[in-house]
């Protein structure tokens, strides 16, 4: 027999109507206040963000106008080019250095230095050094070490914040600054967009705190396709993940809600507890939505710059580090479908395994099998698996195929 009124069945389901006697109007007002508070919080965050102009610098050298000449060659620099992109440091040794002298900056007025920099490789070792005159004490010379992440294809300078006021030698009057970047044997030029010194203050500290969240690094992890998407990189707040802090706050909210379920002593107290609990949970949830929106938007921008309007072959070349797609296309033109090939690969076991799967995918309809009589070697890996008896039968840009004997 058919139900006479399906809608009634669907809508009118038995559910628990017990709970604190709270006013719906009060809750709606509370929600509005929460939304306004959250909007205010977001405005403050934006004001503190790296691109905000609200925190003024004590001293700033912007090299993008191509005219700033205060910084000069210190050592290991073949040439300093002043361009619209910034100050291009072309190394002549492993540790190019640039310096500025004749400053008279009170160390007490400066808490942070910020570099906006582009490096094609990640640099683990870079130093900001200084010389300061101190009244009644010996002059101080010291430095702070920091790291520079690599620049992504398509732009995106990196902002590096260096805390100076924690160093005991950061005192007196700073007269000289030096920037030493250990590029090693790579000889890759580094582009410095700007260097700035910032005072201690709420806005500066907020900006440094924002940078310490490394949201841009997390977004880049989202943007770059991971070989195994098992998890996303957490946002770290100090030593804890943002997730664990948010979960902790939500748990506090839930405990408060449990308290309201107990027999209330006073309805007003119960309402206040429930309101606080819901407020905490809603604020945390909306804050996380805002963080997620920031990360996704940034990831989108990075992906668009790195991959947008380029061919798959070009994207794979960028990610693989060599032209595997071009090699596969060449081989598929030269060899009949179904031909079996063995590949000579390189790297640690994990990288090797991953590479073998990439090669297998790209080569199809050629087949990659370890026992094949044809051996494929790549110039990229600088690895050889052939024996002296094996005969070269095919060669192309970056690869060779041998007939195994």
């Amino acid at each position, binding site marked *: 027999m058919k139900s006479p009124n399906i809608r009634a069945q669907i809508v009118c389901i038995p559910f628990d109507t017990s709970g604190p006697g709270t006013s719906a109007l009060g809750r709606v007002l509370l929600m509005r206040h929460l939304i306004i508070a959250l909007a205010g919080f977001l405005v403050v965050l934006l004001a503190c963000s790296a691109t905000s102009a609200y925190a003024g610098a004590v001293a700033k050298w912007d090299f993008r106008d191509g005219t700033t000449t205060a910084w000069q060659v210190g050592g290991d620099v073949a040439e300093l080019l002043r361009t619209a992109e910034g100050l291009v440091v072309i190394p002549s040794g492993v540790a190019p250095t640039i310096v500025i002298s004749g400053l008279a900056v009170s160390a007490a007025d400066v808490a942070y230095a910020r570099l906006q920099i582009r490096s094609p490789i990640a640099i683990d070792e870079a130093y900001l050094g200084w010389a300061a005159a101190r009244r009644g004490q010996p002059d101080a010379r010291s430095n702070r070490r920091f790291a520079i992440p690599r620049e992504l294809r398509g732009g995106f300078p990196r902002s590096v914040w260096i805390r100076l006021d924690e160093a005991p030698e950061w005192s007196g009057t700073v007269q000289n600054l030096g920037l030493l970047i250990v590029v090693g044997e790579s000889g890759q030029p580094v582009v410095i967009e700007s260097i700035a010194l910032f005072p201690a203050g709420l806005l500066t500290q907020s900006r440094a705190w924002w940078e310490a969240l490394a949201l841009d690094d997390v977004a880049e992890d*989202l943007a770059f396709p991971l070989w195994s998407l098992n998890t996303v990189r957490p946002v770290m707040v100090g030593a804890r993940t943002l*997730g664990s802090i948010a979960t902790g706050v939500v748990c506090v909210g839930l405990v408060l809600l449990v308290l309201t379920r107990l027999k209330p002593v006073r309805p007003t107290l119960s309402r206040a507890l429930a309101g606080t609990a819901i407020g905490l949970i809603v604020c945390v949830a909306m804050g996380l939505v805002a963080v997620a929106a920031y990360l996704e938007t940034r990831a989108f921008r990075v992906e668009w710059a790195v991959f947008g309007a380029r061919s798959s072959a070009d994207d794979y070349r960028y990610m693989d580090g060599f032209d595997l797609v071009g090699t596969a296309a060449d081989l598929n033109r030269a060899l009949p479908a179904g031909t079996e090939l063995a590949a000579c690969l390189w790297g640690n076991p994990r990288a090797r395994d991953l590479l073998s799967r990439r090669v297998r995918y790209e080569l199809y309809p050629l087949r990659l099998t370890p026992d094949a009589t044809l051996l494929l070697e790549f110039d990229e890996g600088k690895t050889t698996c052939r024996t002296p008896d094996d005969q070269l039968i095919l060669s192309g840009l970056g690869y060779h195929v041998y007939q195994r004997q």
Partner: protein
Amino acid sequence: MTYAWGLLASAIPVGVGAVLLFRAGLYGHMHVALFVGVAYGLGLALISFVLVILPVLGIPLTLLWALPSVGLAWGALWFATGRFSKHVESVPASTPASARGLWMRAVWAVGLALLVAKLGLIGVRAMDKPVIGWDAVTTHSLRAKAMYYDQTIARSSLDWIGSADYPLGLPLLELWVNWFQGRWDDTAFKILFPGFLAALLAMLYGALREVVRPLGSLFGAWFAASLPLLVEHATDAYLDLPLAYTTLGTSIFLWRHARTREAHDLLLASAMAAFGVWIKREGAVAFGIALALLALWSVIARAPVRAKPVSTLAAFAAMPALVWVAWAVFRWTALESAPLSFQPSSVSDFFSRALAVAAYASGELWRSSNWNVLWPLFFGVWLFHARRSLDPDILFFTWPVVLTLAAFLATSAGTVMFDFLMQGSTLHRMVLHVAPLAAFSVGLMVGRHWETIRARAPRARG
């Protein structure tokens, strides 16, 4: 043109599914978002089931043969559902739009626009870069590529490529999308995945709308759309998001069936479960759990007198069981590669590992950034409604989550999967299968509570 052909390849399944649902008289019987969301999966399921039959009949696996074959199967179903539709009464199932005025409507419209923009952003992200995921390169996309070049499903390829245990649902769909490109394209077929996310969110919103007002339902959809790992899986080709979609669809239609007693809800749940079994091996686990819960509902939990447990279970189980058995028979008789097997550990090992597994999993759910605050809210809401554990709301949304996680963790503690778990390579992807269910569960229970408060508001204001 990659976008245009990709959109066409994705639009056809939506059209195929929507017309069948319309023909069955189900338009207006469910919220339009739920209608569109399920139409996508229904169309994709039909296409993938038709495509796998072509090689069996000796027909080349090409677009030229596939289009008329899909059309033929679609026509047959159109005819069959036309007869079936006589028994369906078209009754709107969703609550009316909120009448709270312009302000609320404006918030809803802005929220919806932002959600659509977010989905657009995710779509562009997916289509920006070629496929890169391990599983895709190792197994399912390579299978699709092999089918594309071989123009059949070659047994030698299935044995040679990755794990032969993986069903063929997704490779066939990737093949379908690439046919429209006229070449093998490493990027184009990824359009399926933002499509799965959009369909999942549409189903979630549409189902919530049956008990919660528009703004609350939209909050629920946003809540799910903000789960970072769920979103990331929409930008690359993994099987987990499609399985999450079918798992949510199965639960939603079982939940509807528990309230409407309508056969079409049961059949739609069955179709979604069958599609899940056809997508990933774990789909069989999801189906088993859904079947067990349906049995529990039919037999024990407040089932009405007129419910017929055996026929209900048979109607639900028929399609997924058929798919599972057919694939298992083929896999065991036709393929030579060794099946994946997990040797169970000793009982003492199991108990010594169980504690480590529980600690690891709870820590990960607590600390990771994959799920925002989903899990404390899910378990908190469950705690609040523990007394109603056999109600359809909890039976079909909360218990599948708990049972799936329990089954996975027990398997991990008792087999070699322990190592994979502790290396961090399996937990969150398994959790992804049920995360939308958990988000729906939170949205549903909070929404119901909110509606209760609203219903009492006039009295509270006096």
